[in-house]
């Protein structure tokens, strides 16, 4: 054997390496084990891990701005947000086009609410602009249509903008046929000469065909298409070589386009809402234009993004850090009271004859078999000002009738109710650990001269610490993310961070912020777990055995 080690890897009887031979022997076993856990693994991955990853992703995701306002974001790239000048007119024009398209696709209000998280007023600004944006570009549309009614109709536009084969197919198509509408194919000649018009028309065609499901042959182009045509023609597009459909009308328009009435989009926007001339609005747009943002996370710790980088929010808007700290402290208080109340119970359970212990165990487990909501609501009845506890105290004369204790809708209520609800999670691990401590340890300590207290404190207690550890981790982690009980009995001063997360998920619909808060909570819990492992050691946590 030593020879083998000295001369190289150990060999199996047939001369192959022992290691690979062992691997081969074990592979089948491993595969079978994997197959046994596969259903659960897949279930967990699909229903638990994937949603969490998606949720965490949402906490930094910010594509809505660049998706909705692609041209504006591109145009803002060169604008210096730290200066005190407004963006150039081209940016306003890009904004007009973006909002026009967004309005058609009904996306501008969503973006408004998104940006409203960062700057109040953004939501109404976008809604208002969306309502008025239609009229803004019609100046060009009217002028083209006045010049030649040719530009009015979809039937005339399609042959100009689309490839001939597609035009034929499109004209032959009817909604009644049930077949899908032939997808728009741009006319390559026009795309070269009039790039902006072609791009806008393609957007328009895509929207009509795929989102609105209207017949493209019967839908008149958007106003942005006209303004793009004006842009192309006025910047000197060379249409002399073009001979396809509408060549004549294009040349006619090109000749007079210089004399068209123009629109100043920056003025028009400002006229819609003077906020468009406010630096704040543009800075917010610029700061939140990247695809990914730390904004939600900064928000979660009472900070905000500004042009000078992250900064603290004003004092009166700071909220989340306080809430995090409160959640941590209250969870610690709950864990502490669970230890205080649960330790003696666990001790008695572990030291009683099993018949009595089983009966007591049922009493401990009874809350588990009662609906959480019922238990919490029961506490509401017990703790309210006119409730059982206060009535008893008044009856006993311990509390004056006019100064009844406020035991609910505050942190006291949360601590009382949650201690009760989480107590079994403390008692069970304590019990199962204490059950394994032989009585002879304490006896030995006493026979060695230790008093009851010394025997308990120096011998019994250290051995029950793993149970305390397991119970504390369970109770603390459960309580830090608890939602229903604080929601019902906590009021405003007894609510937890999870209540804010739920609020942002279901009421304010700020999922990004909810995800960021959740991610921070996750990191805090994992950090505490790590710290616990370093200080106490996870090996010292026992759930029994």
């Amino acid at each position, binding site marked *: 054997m030593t020879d083998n080690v000295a001369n190289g890897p150990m060999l199996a009887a047939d001369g192959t390496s022992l290691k690979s031979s062992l691997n081969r022997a074990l592979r089948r076993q491993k595969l079978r084990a994997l197959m046994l856990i596969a259903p659960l693994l897949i279930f967990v991955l699909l229903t638990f891990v994937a949603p969490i990853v998606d949720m965490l992703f949402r906490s930094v995701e910010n594509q809505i701005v660049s998706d909705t306002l692609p041209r504006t974001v591109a145009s803002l790239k060169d604008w210096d947000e730290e200066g005190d000048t407004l963006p150039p007119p081209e940016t306003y024009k890009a904004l007009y086009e973006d909002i026009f398209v967004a309005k058609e696709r009904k996306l501008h209000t969503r973006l408004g609410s998104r940006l409203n998280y960062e700057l109040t007023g953004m939501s109404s600004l976008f809604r208002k602009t969306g309502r008025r944006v239609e009229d803004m570009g019609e100046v060009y549309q009217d002028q083209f249509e006045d010049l030649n009614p040719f530009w009015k109709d979809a039937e005339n536009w399609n042959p100009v903008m689309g490839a001939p084969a597609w035009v034929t197919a499109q004209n032959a198509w009817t909604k009644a046929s049930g077949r899908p509408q032939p997808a728009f194919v741009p006319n390559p000649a026009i795309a070269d000469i009039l790039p902006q018009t072609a791009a806008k028309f393609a957007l328009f065609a895509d929207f009509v065909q795929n989102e609105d499901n209207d017949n493209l042959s019967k839908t008149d182009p958007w106003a942005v298409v006209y303004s793009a045509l004006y842009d192309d023609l006025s910047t000197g597009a060379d249409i002399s070589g073009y001979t396809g459909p509408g060549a004549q009308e294009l040349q006619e328009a090109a000749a007079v386009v210089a004399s068209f009435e123009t629109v100043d989009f920056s003025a028009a926007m400002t006229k819609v809402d003077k906020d468009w001339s406010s630096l704040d609005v543009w800075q917010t747009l610029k700061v939140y234009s990247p695809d990914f943002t730390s904004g939600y996370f900064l928000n979660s710790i009472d900070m905000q993004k500004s042009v000078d980088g992250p900064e603290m929010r004003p004092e009166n808007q700071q909220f989340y850090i306080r809430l995090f700290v409160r959640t941590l402290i209250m969870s610690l208080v709950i864990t502490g009271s669970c230890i205080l109340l649960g330790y003696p119970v666990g001790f008695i359970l572990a030291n009683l004859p099993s018949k009595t212990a089983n009966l007591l165990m049922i009493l401990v487990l009874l809350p588990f078999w009662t609906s959480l909501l019922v238990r919490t609501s029961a506490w509401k009845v017990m703790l309210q000002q006119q409730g059982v506890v206060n009535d008893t105290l008044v009856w006993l004369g311990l509390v004056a009738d006019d100064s009844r204790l406020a035991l609910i809708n505050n942190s006291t209520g949360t601590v009382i109710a949650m201690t009760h609800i989480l107590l079994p999670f403390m008692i069970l691990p304590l019990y199962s650990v204490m059950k394994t401590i*032989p009585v*002879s*340890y304490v*006896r*030995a*300590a*006493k*026979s*060695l*001269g*230790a*008093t*009851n207290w*010394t*025997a308990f404190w*120096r*011998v019994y207690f*250290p*051995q029950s610490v793993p149970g305390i550890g397991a119970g504390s981790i369970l109770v603390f982690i459960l309580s830090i993310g608890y939602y229903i009980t604080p929601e019902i009995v906590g009021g405003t001063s007894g609510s937890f961070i999870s209540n804010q997360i739920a609020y942002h998920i279901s009421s304010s619909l700020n999922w990004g912020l909810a995800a960021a808060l959740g991610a921070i909570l996750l990191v805090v819990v994992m950090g505490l777990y790590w710290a616990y492992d370093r200080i106490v050691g996870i090996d010292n946590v026992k759930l029994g055995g």
Partner: protein
Amino acid sequence: MGQTCRDKNGENIDVTTSSSADAFVEFERVQKSYDGENLVVKDLNLSLPKGEFLTMLGPSGSGKTTCLMMLAGFETATHGDIRLDGKSINNIPPHKRGIGMVFQNYALFPHMTVAENLSFPLEVRKMGKSDREAKVKRALDMVQMGSFAGRRPAQLSGGQQQRIALSRALVFEPELVLMDEPLGALDKQLRETLQFEITNLAHQLGITTVYVTHDQTEALTMSDRVAVFDDGRIQQLAAPDTLYEQPENSFVAQFIGENNTLEGVIEAIKGDMARVKLDSGDVIVAKPINVSKAGERTRVSIRPERVEYNKDRISDDALTLKAEVLEFVYMGDIFRTRLRVAGKDDFIIKTRNAPDVERLKPGQQIEIGWLPEDCRALDA
């Protein structure tokens, strides 16, 4: 010393005075009941002098451990008095009794090192640090475990753990040490080594030891005296050799060592000889121990190694029995032969392996006999 035995009616007869002047540990009319209906310990009287090594031997449930726990203070006597060095300790809590104790599962504190375990009894006695260290070192050296001071109990083998447990029970120099089946979990060889070490230590240090075991070999080899427990009573309290050779009743005879019993009726008692008519009709002579009159049923007990089948060694006037050899087992140092005697086929004889000893063959018909004083007529 107080030697107690029991007659056939279960009454205690004090062989000597129950409370002698040199008694160090005394049980006086001690009773114990857990449920108020059954007595686990029935009227226990026991006293042992300083320096004695006494073993409580008995089957499980015989009350021996309960007695030990009452002495240690973990159980209270329902009735009676337990005295230590002349003072009643019934109302003294265990930690004030100053009794060292060794448990079957060692009960070494798992979260402390060996040295911390040993230093624990000294710490609770508020001893100074240097004194403590010196005593711990001495106690460890005493059991040859000096180099293990920094280890945790879990890193030690069973034998090493028991050595530590022993030295922990001795480190605070108690005058009385109780051991509750301390070697029960160890293998045979280790058990024998430790038996020797424990007896040596106990005698060297002159401490009084009460040792509980259900292993009769252990009891016989280690003790000055053995108290055989059964059914909550001491059946016999005697030195090992007396116990083996002169059992007082059939329980002790059965429990200690291997034993052949033949059942029958007393025909007559004359002095220290009794004629017993066996159920098979054969008549033998036995020494009456706790039988009193003719007509009484009896169980005659005879040790396998006291049975003789070599005609030359059986005296002529002795009564012999016919026997048929059923089985012959060669065991190296001895031969073990199973016979059919007086209608019973579980009669065992043991013979030393010597050149002149005949090896019996199954089916062989022989005659067996013994000295009348080796054959004891006990209660049925």
